[in-house]
């Protein structure tokens, strides 16, 4: 387990981090040798202010300290810290479990995570162990801040923030749009579907992988307790998903029910679930109809240099399409469209026939694509979603609309597979 995760990290960031060693690795991983607490040797005074500031940013820094203590056999200090942890987060079940283990370790060796209840509540213990590993790894191996997720090719001026989720790491990353460049703000532990990611059909208890947008803010609605302090529906299935035959609906980003601080990494019916504290922290930054939520099973990070190069190439692709439309040369225009294209119940040839008829009456066309955003799909299906305000002018028509296109790669060239208004 430990080794597998390190390897994945090595692929992800180009670095490998020693995450856990010694007793803590045993405790979370391989149940062989035990750690036992010696009798309390008197109280070790922990700095209250330090503890407070550590706990203010969430349970993870403290959790990492506690596992560090366990690693070094300082179970007494670990217990004192875990007391502080559950005092600050009374509904943090993982904290309570570790507390139970550390208390039990007073009387017998601590052989494995959830020592005292692993037999009676096997699944729940496994869930919490999964959460512990996810949180520790994410905390100890944060992505370098000079890297950018490949998918955020271009954010529009109005898009203040973007969310990128890594389902393998159970992590949600928040980026802000800093003069056109995505800048890392914060990352959060996050829950996905019970059966993981890559949703395909209704009821498969999976979280979809793809490029989505927030479509509503339901914080003012009367939500069931399950949704916690707020809910933000996503536009799953998007046009691409529909074409692929993906089904299901109601994929939301939402908070956590009131009886727990957080849920296991795999627990929802496909929704993306944050602890309420974290949902509240990002809720004010989400813009309905604008904020992208990109879900990947393994986020690909680019250096700024590579990211800029990719952005320039894709901007060029959109620009060529726009210019070829202005040229009123149907052949040039049509070269940007896939044979499998469809829009508004029109297929490729119907679309082109109509364009030819319209072009016949045109003496000139001017097209502008303003507020362009471009997001690349993670995963196996390579597509780019472009959204922009289309400003169309010709000798006999003026029209503005918000347009969205899905581009796929065919024979090495980007082609439009779907186009429509938003």
């Amino acid at each position, binding site marked *: 387990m430990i080794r597998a995760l390190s390897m994945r990290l090595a692929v992800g960031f180009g670095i490998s981090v020693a995450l856990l060693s010694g007793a803590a690795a045993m405790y979370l991983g391989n149940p062989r040798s035990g750690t036992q607490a010696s*009798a*309390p040797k*008197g109280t070790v005074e922990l700095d209250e202010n330090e503890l407070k500031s550590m706990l203010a940013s969430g349970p993870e820094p403290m959790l990492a300290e506690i596992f560090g203590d366990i690693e070094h056999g300082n179970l007494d200090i670990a217990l004192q810290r875990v007391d502080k942890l*559950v005092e600050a987060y009374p509904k943090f*079940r*993982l*904290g*309570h*479990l570790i*507390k*139970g*283990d550390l*208390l*039990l370790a*007073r*009387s017998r060796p601590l052989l494995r995570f959830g020592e*005292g*209840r692993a*037999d*009676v*509540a*096997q*699944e*729940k*213990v496994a869930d*919490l162990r999964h959460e512990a590993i996810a949180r520790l790894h994410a905390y100890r191996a944060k992505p370098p801040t000079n890297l950018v997720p490949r998918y955020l090719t271009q954010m529009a001026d109005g898009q203040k923030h973007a969310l990128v989720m890594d389902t393998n790491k159970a992590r949600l990353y928040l980026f802000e749009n800093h003069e056109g460049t995505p800048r890392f703000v914060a990352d959060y532990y996050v829950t996905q579907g019970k059966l993981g990611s890559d949703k395909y059909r209704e009821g498969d208890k999976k979280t979809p992988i793809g490029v989505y947008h927030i479509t509503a803010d339901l914080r003012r609605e009367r939500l069931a307790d399950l949704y916690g302090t707020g809910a933000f529906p996503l536009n799953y299935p998007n046009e691409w998903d529909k074409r692929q035959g993906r089904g299901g609906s109601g994929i939301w980003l939402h908070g956590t029910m009131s*009886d727990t601080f957080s849920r296991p990494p795999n627990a929802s019916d496909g929704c993306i679930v944050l602890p309420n504290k974290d949902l509240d922290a990002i809720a004010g930054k989400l813009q309905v109809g604008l904020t992208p939520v990109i879900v990947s099973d393994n986020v690909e990070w680019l250096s700024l240099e590579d990211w800029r190069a990719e952005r320039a190439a894709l901007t060029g692709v959109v620009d060529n399409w726009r210019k070829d439309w202005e040229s009123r040369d149907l052949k040039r225009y049509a070269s940007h469209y896939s044979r499998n294209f469809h829009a508004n119940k029109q297929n490729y040839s119907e679309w082109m026939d109509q364009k030819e008829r319209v072009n016949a009456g045109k003496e000139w066309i001017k097209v502008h694509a303003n507020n362009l955003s471009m997001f690349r799909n993670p995963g196996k299906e390579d597509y780019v979603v472009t959204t922009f305000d289309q400003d169309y002018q010709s000798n006999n028509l003026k029209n503005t609309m918000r347009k969205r296109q899905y581009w796929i790669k065919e024979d090495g060239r980007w082609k439009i597979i779907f186009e429509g208004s938003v």
Partner: protein
Amino acid sequence: MPLLPARFAPLSPSARRYVTAGLAALSVAASMCARADTVQDAGALIKQGKFAQAQELLDKALAQKPSDPQARFLKGIALTEMGKTDAAIGLFQKLTEEFPTLPEPYNNLAVIYAQQKQYDKAKTALETAIRTHPAYATAHENLGDIYARLATQAYDKALQLDSSNSSAQQKLALIRDLMGSPAKIGKPVPPEPVKPVVVASAPQVPTPPPAVIAPPAPAPVVPTTVAAPVAEPKPAMPKPAEPPTQPAANETKKVATAVESWAAAWQRKDVKNYLAAYAKEFKVPGGKSRSAWETERRQRIDRPGDIEVSVANLKVSVDGNRAVASFRQGYRSGKLDINTSKRLDMIQRDGRWQIVQESVGG
């Protein structure tokens, strides 16, 4: 909570010798007078379980010498045994302040705190006792128990288990034990291993986990896809084995009827009458609110598919307006077929027997 009162420091001869020696040194001039005998007699009475008489003697001794630590200490024990815990806490507390190096008052304070489920306070008191006397075995054993109890609490919170029923049962058993055979109290109590806590948790999956299962209050999740064949509207429920020959025979019968109606209402999914079987002081498992529990029960019971609930080997014991009904409970729904032993603690009000506590196992 079973072991702690038995490990009251002075109740075992060795520990008692220790206490006597320690405290006697503090009350120098008193050793030769009649008061010393009075205190000794009080100690003997406590051994025999005659706590009120012991208190009487001790009050006399304290009237003569109000500061006598030995008499105050023994009075604290008598008060604790009689359930006058606030007064006992006061006495022990004062002793710890006046004699901070004596471990016994700390230990006994911890015992009372533990009875009140104030495990953190109990832990602190015991850790203090151990700091002053690192070799004090009783305090170590008690502390081990407290750690185990704190661990159970932590695990319950972590995994949403409810271990309160099982510990409540152990506590009741202990009280009976102490009162029933006072001779035992005099014997040194060997350190008992920490007993595994029986956990009554509602299974989350249709397949019941091996050891301890049961719909305590929460019934198991009923697989919605499985529709059981139409069951008889009335459960096959054996009558209580023999009509008990106690004077309370009439009440025993009423308790049995109440249990049967409860099971029948559950089986026919008559939520209203099912919930009406629970008294208003019913101890809701898992620290939930009554209304949250009722909602959960309603949802579980209302689920599609027939259920079958049976009661077998019903045994009822009545004590005034309280009664305990124990029986084998059969629960069948779809593929699920669970047989558990159940205990219902009941109370009578206005001629009606209602459930105040529901526990599983044992």
